[in-house]
Structures are given as structure tokens and as C-alpha cells.
């Protein structure tokens, strides 16, 4: 952690820190909700129980935890892609010769 000077008005996280935060945090929130909804309907002990005798998870707590991190991972991937697309987009449509021509013909 950087040791601070007195308040100088320059209070900003580095870009990388912002990126990590806005990928990890919203996906954490979404994963929490997804875990709740999923396991309200599905008992982790019954996953994989039908076809083969050993269930997929030995205890429910393992099932919940694995489920939560799975949801976190896939929602984080989605956040990451969204962030990437938003960050790499041109702020404005690039100006082309064609566009210039069209403006001229309108005039």
C-alpha cells in the first residue's frame, strides 16, 4: 500500500486496480445470487446420483462452495470480456474519407 501524503486531490486507483475491482466485484455479486437460486432448487448431494452410485460431491458444503466458485469464474469471464470490449472501443466512430465525402454532398 502506498504511504500517503496529505490530501492533494489526486485520489485515484491505478487503472489495473480499477480493472481487477470492476471485474471481480460485480461477478462476485452475481455469483452469490446465482448460487442461492441454483441451490434452492438443486440439492448438491443429488447431482450425479442417478446414473452412477457415487454422487458428485461428498458433502453439501463442498457442493455449495464448488458451485459458488464456478459461478464466480464464469461471471468474471463475462465481466472481463465486457470490460475488454468497452476499453478497446473507439470513443467516437473513426473518421473516414467516405464520411467526409458524404458531409460534402449534403452541403
Amino acid at each position, binding site marked *: *500500500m*502506498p*504511504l*500517503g*501524503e*496529505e*490530501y*492533494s*486531490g*489526486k*485520489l*485515484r*486507483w*491505478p*487503472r489495473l*486496480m*480499477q480493472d481487477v*475491482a*470492476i471485474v471481480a*466485484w*460485480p461477478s462476485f455479486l452475481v455469483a452469490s445470487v446465482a448460487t*442461492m*437460486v441454483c*441451490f*434452492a*432448487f438443486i*440439492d448438491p448431494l443429488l447431482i450425479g446420483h442417478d446414473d452412477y452410485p457415487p454422487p458428485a460431491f461428498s*458433502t*453439501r*458444503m*463442498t457442493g*455449495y*462452495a464448488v458451485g459458488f466458485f464456478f459461478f464466480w469464474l464464469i461471471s468474471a469471464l463475462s465481466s472481463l470480456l465486457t470490460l475488454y470490449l468497452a476499453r478497446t472501443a473507439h*470513443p467516437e466512430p473513426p473518421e473516414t474519407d467516405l464520411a467526409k465525402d458524404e458531409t460534402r454532398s449534403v452541403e
Partner: protein
Amino acid sequence: MTGPEAELEGGLYEARQKIYPREIEGRFQRWRAIAVWVLLGIYYLLPWIRWGGRQAVLFDLPARKFHIFGLTLWPQDFYFLTWLLVIAALSLFFFTALAGRLFCGYACPQTVWTETFLWMERLVEGNRSQQMKLAKAPWTLEKLMRKGAKQFLWIAFALWTGFTFVGYFTPITELAGKIVNFATGPWEKFWVLFYGGATYFNAGFMREQVCKYMCPYARFQSAMFDKDTLIITYDAERGEPRGARKKGSDYKSRGLGDCIDCTMCVQVCPTGIDIRKGLQYECIACAACIDACDEVMDKVGYPRGLVRYDTQHGLEGVKKRVLRPRTLVYATLLAVLLGGFAVALSNRSVVGMDVIRDRNALYRERPDGLVENVYNVKILNKDAASHEFHITVSGLPGIEVDYAGPTVLVGPGQVQSVPVRVRVPRGGISGGVDVQFAIETTDRPELRAEGKARFLAPTG
């Protein structure tokens, strides 16, 4: 590229500077302290309260049952939780429309825990200027001791927070015993450290940056605002032009406003903004600047309220309205949802059933001319008392039911599986027909549930 865009680029190379909010006393800070004590008091004490021989509030995930005092919720009652979340969201909208970001300043866990961590920091490192001096000072033994003591307090408090969190999901007295004996399970250990670690980093280091970069509410709360929403605001009309002046001097003749430009409002701000620049989304409405400014106004002998809670209409001198379409709509919706929730909860069925066909055989033709199907009936008793259940089946002429009866005892909060044989005279049907199952308690006939299953017979 425009101005803010360029500033953002600059952010790439700039380390965040830590904000040392100046400590401040005043009426709103007293309210905030009370809120911290009440909310954290509830959080840390609730799992220790007992109710009818068990933990009063226990979200028993291993057993898939939620206990909330006298109420036990099952996975089938999940929609109550959804309903509660909708009510919580709507309450947030309502209070935001009414009084701005009350939640942020007084009740948000991020604020509440950050406040606690700030107290611990002040306890060990002293006030704002002492903290800044310590940060600049070389590493002496005293600095090491102070920083070490702060870390010890922070880590201990964070671990206690993580322990309490897990105590909502696994009985807390058992958990405490396991921790004392180093016998916690792997997941218990993991979640204590996970939640404790999150508390430590969020409240110790990330602090106001969470509100600025990570909080969605901070970005969309302005959608609930209108000109009658209570906000923390600087009265520019009265304050400007700001400037230093000698005490008791006739500043008005020099063309100065009431703001003496002491920057106290900036120094106390936990998010490091200047309220005099107007409403900003970084403002978490903690009202520290109000208390700071009031204190200064008292000292220089000006009336309080240069920075105050007010509405945009209030500042413009227009009549304030609390009752307006926005608040009325939110309030009505909230009342309907709350009423519906209470009614649904009190009418919730406390018995339930599930009928599953036996998979091993479609049907059996008996020598006495009956066709038999076997089912597995699951009786669910969500009530706090045990009940005796009758099982009946109807829907076909001459139908017979056979189970280990005449009644089945199911304990409180228990599920009981009962193999049930259903017989119908051969020739009565062909192929498949739906039959109705019903369970009913012997002591309270209104506690009943119904289910449906397919009865199969040979065709022809």
C-alpha cells in the same frame, strides 16, 4: 481526447494516495456512531441468541433449512427470500427518494466496518496529523510497535467477523468449540478466512475506493433523486465568494461570503471530495462536513448550516414537498409488498408431500385380480410440532391403499418416506390414469397437502 479522458489516462501511472480523514465530533457523527453500534451489535450478537433449544437465527445449509426464531424455511419456501430481496431493494429506492444516500452514510456494511477500522487506527496511531507524521517517519521501534498493534487489532477483529459470519451457517457454539480444539472442517476454516480477509481488505485498505469504483448503487442512485430529495449541500449563495478574514472584521463590506475557506469540510471527508463543488457521486452522505462546518461557524460566530442537509428546492427557496408522486408510488408499492409478504407467510402451508413412482416395476398383476402400483410418498412436516398423517388415494373406482398405517408419525421439521401400494381391480382401466394422493394430519385436518401421480395398468 477530452479533459476527463486525459485525466483518466494519467491515472494509469498514479498510485492512490491514502486519505486520512480528520476526526470530527458533532450531532450527525453521534448518529453514525449509534448506527455502527446498533448494526454491528446485531451482527455480532444475533448468532448467540437461543430460541427453543437451538440457535435463533441459523441458515443451516448442510441440512437445507433456514431457522429464523420460530420460523423454519425450506428450499420450497425460496420465493419468500426472493420476495424479501425485492422489498429490500424497494425500501432502498424509497429512502433514497426521501433522504438521499442515508444507506451509504449510516447503514452500508462498507461504511460501518470502515468506520470501525478507522477507530482502531486512531486508537493506536493517534489523530490525523499524528498518523501522517507516523507514515513519513523512519522505521523506529515505536513505529513498528504502533503499526504492529494496529495490524493485530485489525486482523483479530476481521477474524472475529469471519467467525461470526460462518456462525450464521453452522451452529456458532459448536464452531467456537471446534476452533478452540483446532478441529474445524476445511470449508469452515476456508470461509472464516475468506470473509475475515474480505473485511480486512475492504475496511482496512480499500475503504472509500469501494464506493468510488465498485459500488453500483453509487452510480444509479441519482435516478431516484429529484429536487425534493434531501442531500448534503453547500449553500453557495451564502458562502461565496469564500476567503480568509480576521475574526470580527466586516467581511461583507469586503464583498466576502460566509465561507472562511478553512478547508475543514475537505479534511474530514472520508472520500476526499470538496462538497463546495456541488453534489458529487463520490459523496457517501456521511455528514462529516456538516459537523465540521457547524463547529467552525460556531467559533467564528456565524449561523450554522452553511453546509447542511437540504433539498435543491430548499436551496432555491421553493416550498419543500415530502409527499409527491415519486415517494407516494414507492410507499404504496412497499406497503403492498410488505402486506402480501405477511399474509403469505402466515398462510404458508406447513405440510407438504411428494409422490414418486417406484422405478423398478411399471405394475404388478396379482393373483386376486388386482393391479398394483408402488409409490414412494415423501411427507414433509415443516411445523414445529410432530403430527400423525393419514394417506388417501382417489381417482379410480374400487381403489385400495396399503401402507404401514393406519397413521404415519412425522417429527417436527422432518421428512418421512412411506412406501405406498395402490391397487385397482383389473379391467377397470387400461394404460395410464392420474390418481390423486392426499395427506392429512389427525389432530388438525386443515393441515393437508395433495399430490398427483400416474397409475399404470396393462393395456387391453
